[in-house]
Each structure stands twice: as structure tokens, then as C-alpha cells.
């Protein structure tokens, strides 16, 4: 367990005051501190957006990539060094908009990595256009008119795409979020943590107050904890195809549920062979050490040339 100070950097943080990103950063710092993994074995990848700046505030390897492209780059690093703990972070525009193709492909691949998406309903850094998570009909303050496209449902999409750990949390519920991130990192396979995040500057609908339910009669938060309400997301017998289908369906159904309060927690969890494990079955070297440590000096091409003689 590292000290919190050890996982922070001295880089000036220029997020807006009150931004939900601060909560996510805290949770990430705490999770990393608790992880029992040496700092240099952790690499955090990000896309472009306000959220994209996150790695600069974490004292581990930090790779700030391109808009929508954190996942393939992170995947490359994981393939190169299976001993790395790989975390990708980024915005909802980044991950579910321009990055949707990689999102689907990453789910299918099931490399052992964790993806934390900052879901604020807007394109923060480009000044508040609607993000793919903003529901049809809604209009935040910087939009000229309400959205006329359906929102993506990241939870359902992730489950259908093949993510083997799919969860949601809330950025200002740092404890829940930290625990969720830790569980996601520890999950062997591709994990999604979708984080509901207020953007006080541009999203005047899903504010801190909104999530706290300040305007509701009973002043109860607009989210509830799935697991507290007994939702069982975990596939108990990983080989039981029927159970996998049932748990997937339950997760999708929960995510579609709608209603006054948004469920947070784990929607689906299934421990099945990762891409890395399967690759290792084909490349014995990988069972021994990371690709990056392979010794390739003095290779002999004779057998290859002989094929062509």
C-alpha cells in the first residue's frame, strides 16, 4: 500500500472548480495506492478531453493519447508487457463517440485491462456540445437546441460487446468508485467502469444537486447501489453458457430499466480466458515472460530460408 502522496504529481490541475473529475482522480489515486502493485508497473492511458489530462496527475507511467484512441494504444502496451497493470481513462465523447469502434473491439478481445469512462454528458474540453451519453430531447446550456439522437447505453453496449466486467459508479461517491475501480482492475479481463460525473461548467442538467436529488420530494440521491439491493451480476460457473446469457440479459435489462433512480454497481462479471492467456497457449514464451523481455539476439533464419530452397 502506497501513501496517497506518492501517487500524486506536482502538476498544476486546471479543471474547473467543482468538476466531478476531481472525485474520479481521488478514487483513482486511492485505488492505485491500495493496489499493492509497484508504481512503475502501472500505466494509465487517456484520450483527449478534460478527462484526458488525468494521467498527468498520477505518479505512474502516464500516456495521454489521441481523441478516442486510448484503448488500442493501451492494448498494445498490455500485449507488449503482460505484467503491466493497464488502465485507460477518458471522456464519454472519447470512448462512446469517436472511440465506439475500438470500444466494441476491445470488449470482444478481453485483454486484461480496465477502462474508466468519465460520463458527463458533454464534450467538456470543446465547450459543451452534447456527448453520446446525453439523452434525446435534453439540452444543456451551451447547446443551441435539444439533442435529436438517442443516447448510447454504455452498460448495455459493453455487455453486448463482450466486456467481462461492467460497472457504473458516481464520481462524487468516491468510496464506491474507488472500490469499483479496484474490483475492475483486479478482474482478469476487460473491465468497464462508467462514471457519472457532473460538469458544472457545461452540463446544467446533471449537476451535483441533481444527482443528490436535492429537487426531489424525498431528497434521495438519484442513484442507488445495485448490490445493496441484492443484484447478482457475477457468473458463478464460468463454463456455464446458460448462466452467462442469463447474467448478461439481467445486466442489460438493469441498464435499460429507467425510472427515477440510476443503478450503480456491477452489472455483469464473468471470469473467462483473457486474450493474453489464449495467446500464451500459442506462444510458449508468453507463459514465461513479457514480450518486452524476450531475447531475440542471434536468431538463425536457416530453417526459413530452407523452406524456399
Amino acid at each position, binding site marked *: 500500500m502506497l501513501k496517497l502522496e506518492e501517487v500524486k504529481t506536482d502538476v498544476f490541475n486546471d479543471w474547473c472548480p467543482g468538476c466531478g473529475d476531481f472525485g474520479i482522480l481521488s478514487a483513482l489515486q486511492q485505488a492505485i495506492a491500495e493496489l499493492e502493485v509497484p508504481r512503475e508497473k502501472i*500505466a494509465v492511458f487517456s484520450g483527449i478531453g478534460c478527462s484526458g489530462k488525468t494521467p498527468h496527475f498520477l505518479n505512474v507511467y502516464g500516456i495521454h493519447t489521441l481523441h478516442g484512441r486510448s484503448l488500442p494504444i*493501451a*492494448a*498494445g*502496451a498490455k500485449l507488449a508487457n503482460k505484467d503491466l497493470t493497464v488502465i485507460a481513462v477518458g471522456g464519454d465523447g472519447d470512448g462512446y463517440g469517436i472511440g465506439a469502434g475500438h470500444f466494441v473491439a476491445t470488449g470482444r478481445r478481453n485483454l486484461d485491462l480496465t477502462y474508466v469512462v468519465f460520463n458527463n454528458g458533454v464534450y467538456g474540453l470543446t465547450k459543451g456540445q452534447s456527448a453520446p451519453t446525453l439523452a434525446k430531447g435534453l439540452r444543456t446550456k451551451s447547446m443551441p437546441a435539444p439533442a435529436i439522437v438517442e443516447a448510447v447505453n454504455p452498460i448495455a453496449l459493453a455487455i453486448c460487446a463482450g466486456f467481462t466486467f461492467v460497472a457504473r459508479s458516481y464520481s462524487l461517491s468516491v468510496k464506491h468508485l474507488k472500490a469499483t475501480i479496484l474490483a475492475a482492475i483486479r478482474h482478469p479481463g476487460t473491465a468497464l467502469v462508467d462514471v457519472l460525473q457532473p460538469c458544472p461548467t457545461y452540463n446544467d442538467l446533471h449537476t451535483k444537486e441533481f444527482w443528490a436529488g436535492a429537487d426531489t420530494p424525498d431528497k434521495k440521491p438519484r442513484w442507488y447501489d445495485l448490490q445493496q439491493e441484492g443484484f447478482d451480476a457475477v457468473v458463478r460457473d464460468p463454463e456455464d453458457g446458460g448462466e452467462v446469457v442469463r447474467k448478461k440479459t439481467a445486466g442489460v435489462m438493469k441498464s435499460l430499466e429507467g425510472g427515477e433512480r440510476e443503478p450503480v454497481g456491477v452489472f455483469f462479471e464473468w471470469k473467462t480466458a483473457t486474450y493474453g492467456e489464449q*495467446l500464451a497457449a500459442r506462444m510458449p514464451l*508468453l507463459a514465461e515472460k513479457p514480450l518486452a523481455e524476450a531475447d531475440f539476439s542471434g*536468431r538463425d533464419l536457416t530453417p526459413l530460408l530452407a523452406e*524456399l*530452397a
Partner: protein
Amino acid sequence: MSNQADLVWMIGGPQGSGINLAAETLTRCCMRGGLHVFANIEYHSNIKGEHSYYRLRIAKERRRSHLERVDLLVALDRETLVGDVHKSEVTHRGHLHEMAPGGAILFDSGNGPAPGDPSREDVRMFPVPFRDILLEALRMYGREGEVGKLQIMYNVIGLGASIGLLGYDQDLVTRVIAEGFKGRKAALADLNVAVFRRAAEYAMERFATSYPHRLSVLGGSGGRVMMRGIQAVGMAKILAGCGLQTYYPITPATDESDYLESRQGQFPTAVVQCEDEISAVLMAIGAAHAGVRASTSTSGPGFSLMAEGLGWAGITEAPGPVVILYQRGGPATGLPTRHEQADVRFALHAAHGEFPRIVVAPGDAEECFRTTFEAFNWAERYQCPVTVITDKYTASSYSTIPPFETSGLKIDRGVVFTPPKSGKDGFLRYKFTKNGISPRSRLGDRGGIFWTSGDEHNERGHIVESAENRVKMQTKRMTKLVTAAKEIPEGMMWTLHGPADAEVMVVGWGSTKGPILDAIEELETQGVAASFLQLRLLLPFPGDAVRKVLRKAKTHVMVEGNYGGQVRGLIREMTGVHVRRLVHKFDGRPFSQDEVREGILQQLKSARRPAVMSHA
């Protein structure tokens, strides 16, 4: 040995009819018999049915290109003779018109010329009853019932008839055929040999007397191997220790990834099929940052999706990737299975903004091998993306060459960091240095924690927007190119074949090397003394050296497989020298030796307009 003494053998038939196997077997047989072969293929973007053909140039000495004429044609179908007359719009005329006078055609008597088809008085037509021969052979094994399914063996009949006609060593061929059927397929060996033998005998008996050409064993193979560009690249990657090959399927690049994948048990290169080329290039870059030599191979359409990734690799100074760009006919989907050299300007400038990168154009399989090997060294040494630009002609043509010389090849991983003894943080991944190169750590290295960003950043890798840092950091990055230009040996940058003051200096790059070398050899015999300046390193461009060489020439002729004369423009940009005479070709086919020769002669006569070659 003059070109006239070479034998040009061609086999044509629908896609999927196994002409490849016939051609490759014949190549191997010739090689084993001490002959040299250069082989190239043309095929449609189609799986089954469209016309494809393989052309083998068989010679007593090394040949590097193809000729236009055909001496012996094996026609598996009528289309090979007269073209796609069954279509609403006829798009080609077959190969009858390409036959050399005195040449011969072995054709399937069940699928040959129809009444009214064009014919040639000066070409011998040898009908071969493919079906009967197959049936006879099958009968020996009691498998006549499978004649429909086993029509795929018509290619072996074509091969056999050719061998019989040419009087080549049937035992040698038999051995080669048998070698081809190993493991699960061993049961098929005898059947194939039987078919082969029958066809050979048939042709020998009926036609050999009326056909003068003979092919004979000269000796042993001299250790030579039959090598395609993609195999040369694949072997270079293996030797260079490429740990990750990402790809998205695309013609003609896929074969290279297949090559690596099928050998990954033996040589551990993880081969990953990605969701698209954006992902392919980025995964490779991610792996490079994590310390693995990484590569991706593609052709134009895929490369078009890689631009943004290349820029990110550039600004983050990733020690890679090595991108192999196999040019094919463009733009867009273009002519997906055909040849062109028209992506070079794009390869030089892909992605917005400015960053260091290396672009290098090998001229043939041997150079593909050497260049690809060095590309990994450069990628790590200069921490930048390296694009090896080659093409379909190089990728898929075979030739018989001596095995690669690997003793001089050294792996150079560039400047890596030394972990601080203290274990303390503070590593400066982007340290300002005089030569622009900063020591690098790999994700996962203890004491090497760094940050990086596609945003402009400081020495630690954190975002900084200051003008001062920008100027220093951009200058540092770009200085790596100056360093590379100093360090890369001149021999990798350009090659002058022949004397600088020859009557004509032919200028070219990439796969025109073969046809140019062959053409100037031929021109020599016709009294035109020509040299060949082959450009290899296109970025950083060795402007001063090239200018000096060009200035020595009396006349220049540029030869390029594109519309715009792209490298001609690059030369002018970089050296001020305008190579006025241009021989170009953009019909989706590679230059033949003949086209280069004719084009040069044409330009020497008049340079009023460029010579557009297209032996259609």
C-alpha cells in the same frame, strides 16, 4: 546470354484454378536445375473466376524483371487466349497477341478457342485434353468419380505439358511435386505425380518435335532460394526481433502477417488482427513505448487511416512502429490487386503538423530484407516512426536469389536509460540534448516513470503551452532527423549503378530497380551507355549528395510508376534539379524491362512530353 535466349513461360486461368502452384513449382524446379527465374503475377480483385496469370522468365543468369513477350503459354481457359469476351464489356484481349513469333500455346482442348476467335499464324497451338488426362490418372487410383472435384489439378496438367514440351527433367519435377504434399496432404502426392507424368508424356510425344525450345538442367541451385518481397520482409522482422505485428487484412500486405503468424510458435512474434488500421498502427505504437519492437503492414487504404497515429508516434517519440506500406493501384480502393508507386508523397507527409519520421524505399526483396531490419534499429535509435515503402510488384514477385547475408546485421536499440541507483523519480524522457535524442525508458521500467502526451510537453512529458518550451522541444525533435541523416550510411540512402558520367542517368526508386537494371543492360548492347541512380532514403532526403550526383550526369530520365512523377518533384524540391525527362506508367501494372527501355529511348528522342507506358 541475351534476352532472346530467355524463356518466358506463362500460365493463365481463372482465379482459384491453382496457377500459383504450377508457377511456383516450375520456379522451384528451374532453380533446382541451376536456372534463374523471375516470376510475377497479375490477378483481379476477386476470389474465383476472373482472369489471372503468372509469368516466369527463365534464364541462365539473374533476371530482375519481366518481359512483354510470351514464349510458351499455358491456357487453362479460353479467356487466357482471347480475353473476357463473355462480359457485357470486354476489358482485355487475353495473351494470344503477346505471343512471341514462334511461340507455342498449350491449351485445354475442352476449353480452347471458339470459332471466329482471333488466331496467329506464327504461333503453334497445342491442344491438350485436360479432362482425359486427369481421368486417366484418376483411373489408376479408381477415383474417376471425383473428376469434377479434382479439376483443380488442371494446373498440374499445365505444368506437366510444359515440362514435357520443353524436355525438362521430369524426375526433378516429380521430386518437387512430391515435396509439396506433406503431412495431411501426403496422400495426394502420388495422384499429382501421376497426373503430371501423363501430361508430360502427352505433350512430349505429340508436340515436342514441332517445337524447338528446350529447357535443361544446368547444375545445382547454388544454394539459391525463391524469394518474394513479403517473405523477405517477414524474415527481416523475425531477425530484428519484432515482437508484435498488428494488421488488418488487406491486399497485398496480409500475406506478410500470415507468414509471421504461421511461424509464431518458432519465432515469437505476436500477430494481432485488429478492428481497423487505426487500431493496428496505434497498438504497435503502444507496444513500442512498452519496449517491444513493433510493426504493422498495410497498403494505401489502410495507410490512409494511420495518419493521425503516425503524428502521435512522432510527438511522443515512440521508438516505432515500423510500417510497411505495400503500394497498390489507387486512389481509394483503386485497383486492389494491381501495382502502382503512387503513395510516396502521402507517405512523406501523412498527418498534420511536423515531426521526425523516416521513409525508405527498398528496390527489391534483398533490399526489403536489409531495409526492414535496419528500420527497427532506426525506429529505436531515433525514436520515430519508420515507413518502409514498397509495392505489390516487390511483394508478390518471386525471384531466385542467394540466401540473405546476415552476418553484418547488428541489432541497435538506441540510447536506453540507466535506472537511477536511488530509485527516485525525476526521469526526463524528453531531455533536451544536442542531437535531439533523449534516453528512453520503457513502460514498466523501474526508475523510468515518465509521462507523454500528444499535446506539446516539457522534458518530463507534461503538457506545457509556452512558446519557449515549444521552440526547444520541436527543435529537439526535428534535430533527430539531422542526426539520422548524418548517421545512416550513404549506401542505405542511394546507390549509383554504373558510372556517374554515363550518357544517360536513369533515376528511379523502389521496384523500378529491377526493370531499370535489366533495361540499361540491354541498352548497353544497343549502344546506349546508361547508369542508374537509385534513391532509397526518401526522408531525410540526402539532398546534397543527390544533387552532386545528378549534376555529373549528361542527361537524366526519371522512371516512376505513377501519374504525377512524385519523386521527380521531390528531387526538384530537395536539390533544385529538374529531371525533365519522365517515363511513367499508371495502368496498374509494373514496368517491364521492355517498357523501361522503350520509354528511355523515347525520352532521349524527344522530351516534349513524358512517355506514358502501357503495354496493354
